[in-house]
Structure formats: structure tokens, C-alpha cells
């Protein structure tokens, strides 16, 4: 089936070459990072995780969100999602691949990464995260391949795949749960040390992932013959509305415990994020942008008139996606390190090489999405418009 990605019109190839150029640039800067060390990034002794690990965390959410189309279709026999499941699974594969790459490029000694397998350590959450992420990758690769192959041959998928699909549902929850455990199990980092972090991760995942899926469908509708109809889009937008509301609600819960209790150390990172500490306020405009986008998106999503209007829904989905990307892809990880365990404020901002390396990984992810969607649509004969 892969050969279907090798045939395309000029627009397809321009896009592919554009992505490959970004990947090439990212790769060259990565070689530079390997030679110089991670000092090429904006990270420092006090802020030791930054843009790479934050992207990893955000994309685990995008990957997990495939379950929002798989669950209604396979568990509740919700037929409306029949055309969507494969898109969700392919998005999951691409997102998990990016996750793994973001972890690898963040390692100081990537050539030793195999030590995690050579010296398995069940007490480390990273060990479990490696298992659940790769397991999820294998599950989705298998499911999408088998179901698409059946669709190509116009036969029903084999029976044995059904339990595997059902297994992928709790597995999707597990990848984001375990990823949250990386953070919320550390007693020395009060900002992350909260049981609501895991549900918050899941809620934001089930908002940002489906939002991205809707945006992808809009793009496909514009450039290809693919059209799932209005119903799955509206159903997804309801899912996004619930998930985004929960996400904002959970953030408010966090603020209540931190500020009503008056516990100094639980407030510090929030104060840094929202107002800055001693003039250090690099993330402040970002986090307020995230809040404004969240509120704005909820206004559009709550109102059935705007939610059921494709133009407004697209704007709402972009707002949800950006809001959560800022919250998780910038704020959440960095703020955990500010102030430091010694009460000092060191600011972090990604450097240009760091941003270009990350962009290269994103380009690879988008290339995978492009190729996978091309294959899926070719199989259904829905490519050209």
C-alpha cells in the first residue's frame, strides 16, 4: 500500500519537498547539537527540561485523542465515525513518532538510549512510558494496517483485530496517564505535585487532539474528495466542548487549592506564569494569550449556532489547539522549574537552533500524516478533486 504515497500531483510534491527541507535543516542543527552538547539550547542548570520535553508532553495528548473517535465507533457502534477512525489512528501513529523523537533529541547521550532496555528499571516512570508509548505505536500501526487492508479488498476486517482495537482504548488513556506520572510523582516540584495533573492532561488531550483532527478534515475537504459529512464533525465538536470545559475547570481547581490554602510554594510557579516574579515575566504574555484563547473558544463552542457553523468551528478549533499548545507546550514544563528548589528564578527561552530542531521533528510528523492520509484516501479513491 505504501507505493500509493509515491504518486501525487505537483501540489502534493511541493508540500512533501517543503517538509523534507525543514527536516533537513532540523537534522543539520541536530548534528551541531550532538557536537556541541545540549548547551546549544536555552536550557540551564536550573531549567533542565524545556521545549523538547514540552512538545513530547503535548503530542502524547494528541496521540491519545485518537480514542475519541475509536471508542464511539467500536464500543458504541457509532457508525458516523466510520470514515474518521483511520484518520485518528494515523494521527496517533504520527504523534507518537514525534513524541519518541522529541525524547531522543533531548537526551545528552542519545547513543546510550538503549541502556533503558538493557537495564530495565520498573521504579522509573520513563521505563513505563517507553513501554506504553511503543505499545500504542504498535497497536495503532497494526490496527490501521489491518482495517485499511480489509477496506481495500472490500471485505470485513478479520475478527481477531476487534479485541486489539478494544485494547487500544484503555491503552490510549494509559499513555497520557503515565506521561503525567513523570511529573506529578516528584515531591520536590510543587507545581507538578498535584493529583489533578493527570485528569487535566487527559482533558486537554481530548480537546486538542479532536480539534486538530477537525482541522485536518477541513484541509482534506478543501483539497481532496474526502468528505465525512457534517455529523461526525459536529459530534467531535461536542466532545471538544466537554473536554475543553473540563480542562478549564481543572485549571480553576488548581488555582483554588494553591491560593485559598495560602501555601507559598504551591503559588510560586502560578505567580511566575501569570504575573512574573521580580520582573522575570517572559511567559506572562503567552499564558494570558492561552487563557484568552481558551475563553474565546469556549464562547464559540458553547453556542450551538457558532459550533454548528463550519467557519466558526474552525476558528474555535484553532483557538483550542493554540491555547492548549501554549499551556502544555510552553508553560506547564518550564514553570515547574521556576522558581528552582533553592527559590531562584532563572528564565528559559528556546534558542533558534533548538526551535529549528523541534520544527524538523514536527515536519517529519506532518510528512507522516501526509503520507498516511494519502494512502488512506487512495485506497478509498478519494484523492483528486
Amino acid at each position, binding site marked *: 500500500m505504501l507505493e500509493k504515497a509515491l504518486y501525487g500531483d505537483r501540489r502534493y510534491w511541493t508540500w512533501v519537498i517543503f517538509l523534507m527541507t525543514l527536516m533537513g535543516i532540523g537534522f543539520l542543527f541536530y548534528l551541531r547539537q550532538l557536537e*556541541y*552538547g*545540549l*548547551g546549544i539550547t536555552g*536550557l*540551564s*542548570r*536550573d531549567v*533542565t*527540561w524545556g521545549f523538547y520535553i514540552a512538545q513530547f508532553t503535548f503530542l502524547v495528548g494528541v496521540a491519545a485523542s485518537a480514542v475519541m473517535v475509536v471508542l464511539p465507533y467500536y464500543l458504541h457502534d457509532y457508525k458516523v465515525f466510520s470514515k474518521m477512525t483511520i484518520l485518528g489512528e494515523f494521527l496517533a501513529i504520527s504523534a507518537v513518532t514525534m513524541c519518541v523523537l522529541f*525524547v531522543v533529541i*533531548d*537526551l*545528552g*547521550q*542519545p547513543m*546510550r*538510549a*538503549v*541502556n*533503558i*532496555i*538493557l*537495564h*530495565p*528499571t520498573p*521504579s*522509573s*516512570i*520513563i*521505563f513505563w512510558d*517507553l513501554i506504553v508509548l511503543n505499545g500504542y505505536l504498535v497497536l495503532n500501526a497494526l490496527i490501521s494496517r489491518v482495517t485499511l487492508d480489509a477496506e481495500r479488498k472490500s471485505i470485513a476486517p478479520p475478527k481477531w483485530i476487534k479485541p486489539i482495537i478494544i485494547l487500544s482504548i484503555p491503552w490510549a488513556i494509559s499513555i497520557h496517564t503515565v506521561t503525567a506520572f*513523570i511529573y506529578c*510523582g*516528584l*515531591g*520536590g*516540584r510543587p507545581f507538578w505535585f498535584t493529583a489533578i495533573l493527570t485528569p487535566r492532561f487527559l482533558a486537554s488531550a481530548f480537546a486538542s487532539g479532536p480539534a486538530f483532527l477537525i482541522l485536518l478534515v477541513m484541509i482534506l475537504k478543501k483539497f481532496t474528495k474526502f468528505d465525512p459529512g457534517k455529523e461526525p464533525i459536529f459530534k467531535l465538536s461536542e466532545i471538544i466542548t466537554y473536554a475543553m470545559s473540563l480542562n478549564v475547570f481543572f485549571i480553576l481547581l488548581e488555582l483554588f487549592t494553591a491560593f485559598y490554602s495560602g501555601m*507559598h*510554594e504551591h503559588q510560586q510557579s502560578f505567580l511566575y506564569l501569570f504575573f512574573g516574579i521580580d520582573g522575570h515575566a517572559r511567559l506572562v504574555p503567552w499564558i494570558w494569550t492561552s487563557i484568552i484563547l481558551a475563553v474565546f473558544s469556549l464562547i464559540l463552542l458553547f453556542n450551538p449556532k457558532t459550533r454548528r457553523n463550519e467557519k466558526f468551528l474552525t476558528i474555535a478549533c484553532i483557538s483550542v489547539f493554540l491555547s492548549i499548545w501554549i499551556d502544555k507546550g510552553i508553560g506547564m514544563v518550564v514553570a*515547574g*522549574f521556576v522558581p*528552582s*528548589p*533553592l*527559590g*531562584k528564578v*532563572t528564565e528559559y527561552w528556546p534558542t533558534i537552533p533548538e526551535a529549528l530542531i523541534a520544527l524538523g521533528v514536527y515536519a517529519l510528523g506532518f510528512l507522516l500524516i501526509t503520507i498516511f492520509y494519502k494512502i488512506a484516501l487512495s485506497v478509498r479513491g478519494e484523492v483528486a478533486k
Partner: protein
Amino acid sequence: MSFDRRKFIKIAGLTTIVTLTGKPVFDAIAADSPLNVSTEPNRLTAKRWAMAVNTKKCLEKEGCTDCITACHHIHNVPDFGNPKDEVKWIWHEKYENAFLDQENEYMEEKLKDKPVLVFCNHCDNPPCVRVCPTQATFRREDGIVMMDWHRCIGCRYCVAACPYGSRSFNWRDPRPFIKEIVPDFPTRTRGVVEKCTFCDERLAIGLQPACVEACKEKALVFGDLEDPKSEIRELLKANFSIRRKPALGTQPEVYYIV
């Protein structure tokens, strides 16, 4: 063709999985290496090593950095000259930074704004060891929290987990920034984490940690907490001492006499 491409990939994949998962099992059966490898007859041993810092004595000589200089010299700790790349094993921190949870605006003047020595606490319940995905950092039976710089993959999970900021990462090649390389001790490579090791290499040949030896005021006392007659136990018996962030349950083994 009976052995097509897909079948080949399947078998190749399975072989890889079996090889990768089989190795640790094999190692677990084959491995039988003791942790204390030194056979030196006069090596120092203990059931639980710990350090006491007598802050009053430490402050006697203002601006003294003898212990820091000695430690960083013999351990080939680089000096990058900037806070971003900084690597340090033992250093001075203001009292209110070292003891964040002891906030007190009207603290006695001889401690307020005064420097306190901080370094790895060699916790009994170390979060860094718990989170390390490769066991590159581990707790020895005698209580020393050690680092294996050849196994560390540089994920920095331990740095995120340490509530004391005791761990440093080599953001770049440290070797050009070591003033004078001491050949007796390994230098590190870029991309690994390092920290104080209670001078395990000196204990192994019967010497006290370098910082303890360097302190002329005898402000640092190192010894076995399980030995009731040890100097450190006598000192802790006779003086009021505190530890950093005890509420976190890490059981730090560095005691501060204030």
C-alpha cells in the same frame, strides 16, 4: 515466493525484540558483582555514611572556600564562568535559599543572609535513584548515592526529581574548562549528570572526603550514623541540628548544626 519481504520484516522484528529483552534476563542471572570493590585493608567502611555541617564554625573565617576549592579541584569539576552551563558539587547558598521552608524575617543576624554549604544529601530515600531509567544513579549499601557516568543517558529526570538542586548536567564538553586536570580522577563527557559522591574514591583508600580534610575549622564531620560512638553521632547528640526539606520524606543524610 514463500519467503517474501513482509515475512522477512516480521522475523527480523521478532529477532530484535527477543535479543533486546533476553539480554537483561541473561545479565540478571550472570551478574554477581559486589558493590564495594575496594580490597584496600585500611579502606573506610560504614553502615550509613552521613555528614554534619557545623554552620557556626563554618562562618568563623569569612569568605573561606577551602572545601569547595579542594573538592572541585580533585574531582575535575569544570568552571564555565557562567550560571547557564554551571557544574558544581559543593557550594555556598544563602541560608534562606538553602532552607526555603524555614522562612523567618527576623532570624538571628549571625545566620541571616549568611552562606551555608550545600551539596548532595545522600538521601536514604533518594528520588533521583527512584526515577533514573537506567540505574546510572544508585544507592550503595553504605548510604552513598553514586553516579555511573558511563551509563547515564542524560535524560535529566534525576535533576527534575532532586528537591535540593544538587545535580549538575554537562551542557557542553567540560574538559576545556577544567583549570588543571587531575589524572587520578575521571573527567566527564558532555551530556551526563554529575554530583557529590562523598568521595567514594578516597574512602576506598582510607581517606576522609576532600572537603572534610580541607576544612581547617573542622566544621565538617563525616562518619557512620549507625555507630553510636562515632564523632558525628556524639556531635548530633550534643547539638541541635536541622536537615533540608525533611517534610518531603527523602531522609537527607546531611545535618546542619545551627
